[in-house]
């Protein structure tokens, strides 16, 4: 056996795809080839250790999305396969071009009929598939929203962060999700979730209600990092209406000095935007 063949056989041996005779042949080669023997020992051990890598699990949200998608598809799937081509297809006249001889007439008619059936069937099929998939993808977006909302309510902070991540992958930030993110900014016990939620709400910065909610949230926060992130949010969204809130906030006695300075500067900048 050549070393080149041995490599192929080693890979087969890792997966247990060698029969007894081949295994014996490989062993004989390894006994006489130090290089292949070392490779087999090293890579074989690595192959085995790969089995110790943890096996991740999909979240419940994935199952929820799938169920919703399948139900949606079941609603849009028509029963049976309609390939009928209506008799109305022959309403136009071909008198000017119509041949006199019956054999040509029959040939042309048959050809047209077959072509029509094929094109019609393909078109109907494609159209039905496109409609189903469009409905399905729309449903997927809805289920993504449901998944985000569901994850944001989980006990584990990791799951809630996934919920925020889901919300960021929605094409548009739906009001229900925006409300859940604001709720997270206001009440989530985990600072990372609050910070992530603020980032996710950047897409809703055009919404005055969202900006107002976050300006109010500023006064409730105890984490300097979250306070600074909210101040940045209000400045980046150029919400001049938040300037008084920031001024009042900056006068709080219990405020971190750096945050206080940040708020003073932010209030000044927002006043300039008026």
């Amino acid at each position, binding site marked *: 056996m050549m070393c080149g063949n041995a490599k*192929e056989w080693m*890979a087969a041996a890792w997966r247990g795809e060698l029969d007894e005779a081949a295994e014996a042949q490989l062993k004989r080669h390894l006994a006489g080839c130090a290089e292949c023997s070392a490779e087999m020992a090293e890579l074989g051990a690595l192959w085995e250790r790969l089995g110790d*890598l943890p096996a*991740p699990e999909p979240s419940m949200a994935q*199952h929820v999305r799938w169920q919703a998608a*399948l139900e949606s598809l079941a609603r849009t799937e028509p029963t049976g396969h309609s390939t009928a081509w209506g008799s109305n297809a022959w309403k136009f006249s071909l008198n000017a071009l119509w041949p006199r001889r019956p054999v040509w007439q029959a040939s042309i008619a048959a050809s047209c009929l077959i072509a029509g059936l094929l094109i019609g069937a393909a078109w109907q099929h494609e159209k039905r598939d496109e409609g189903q*998939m469009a409905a399905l993808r729309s449903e997927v977006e809805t289920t993504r929203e449901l998944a985000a909302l569901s994850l944001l309510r989980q006990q584990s902070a990791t799951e809630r962060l996934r919920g925020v991540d889901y919300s960021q992958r929605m094409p548009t930030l739906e009001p229900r999700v925006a409300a859940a993110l604001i709720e997270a900014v206001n009440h989530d016990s985990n600072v990372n979730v609050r910070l992530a939620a603020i980032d996710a709400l950047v897409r809703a910065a055009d919404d005055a209600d969202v900006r107002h909610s976050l300006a109010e949230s500023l006064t409730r926060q105890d984490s300097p990092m979250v306070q600074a992130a909210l101040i940045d949010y209000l400045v980046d969204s150029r919400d001049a209406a938040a300037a008084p809130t920031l001024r009042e906030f900056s006068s709080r006695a219990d405020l971190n000095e750096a945050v206080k300075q940040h708020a003073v500067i932010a209030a000044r900048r927002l006043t300039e935007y008026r």
Partner: protein
Amino acid sequence: MMAQGTRPTQATDHELMAAVARGDVASMSGIYEHRNRALFRFFYRLTGRQAPAEDLTHEVFLRMIRYRHTYQAGDGFEAWMYRIARNAFADYVKKTRLEMPAAEGEMEAVESANPSQFESLAKQQDLATLHRALRRLPDEKRELILLSRFQGLSYEQIGRIVGCETGTAKVRVFRAMKEMGRIYGDLLQEKAS
């Protein structure tokens, strides 16, 4: 050897897919039950992230429904499904090429179903290094290792999926393992120095 998430009843999935191809889309729910975990793990190990892995898994089932008319019994269900999975991943890579990839060693924490596997800190660190080595492989090589080691596919099936002879698939997996071994060794040396 039976890899995680695979099952020996391929004929059943073939029958279910044949039913889906005939228009019984509800049969896809049986395939989902059998395959979603394995597909999710395949994508998780490719992307290093939970959310894209879930999106890609979802996408594969949608594509299987969409392309149900292309399903042919001769090729085997698994080979067909993983060809769709590879295409979905290739599209994902194109779409996210400009985005920041998951940094090496920064894969999202995996909550193992078997905590006893992680008894010692040293073993945890070793597995993290192994994970980083797998992540550093080019996508096409990582795919080969995942298909052969974790997805439980034979080299014949892998050959059909990636479009090469069975022998070539074996050699490619060997080379991918060799490269991973080299990366793993480099990472261990980095840690030691």
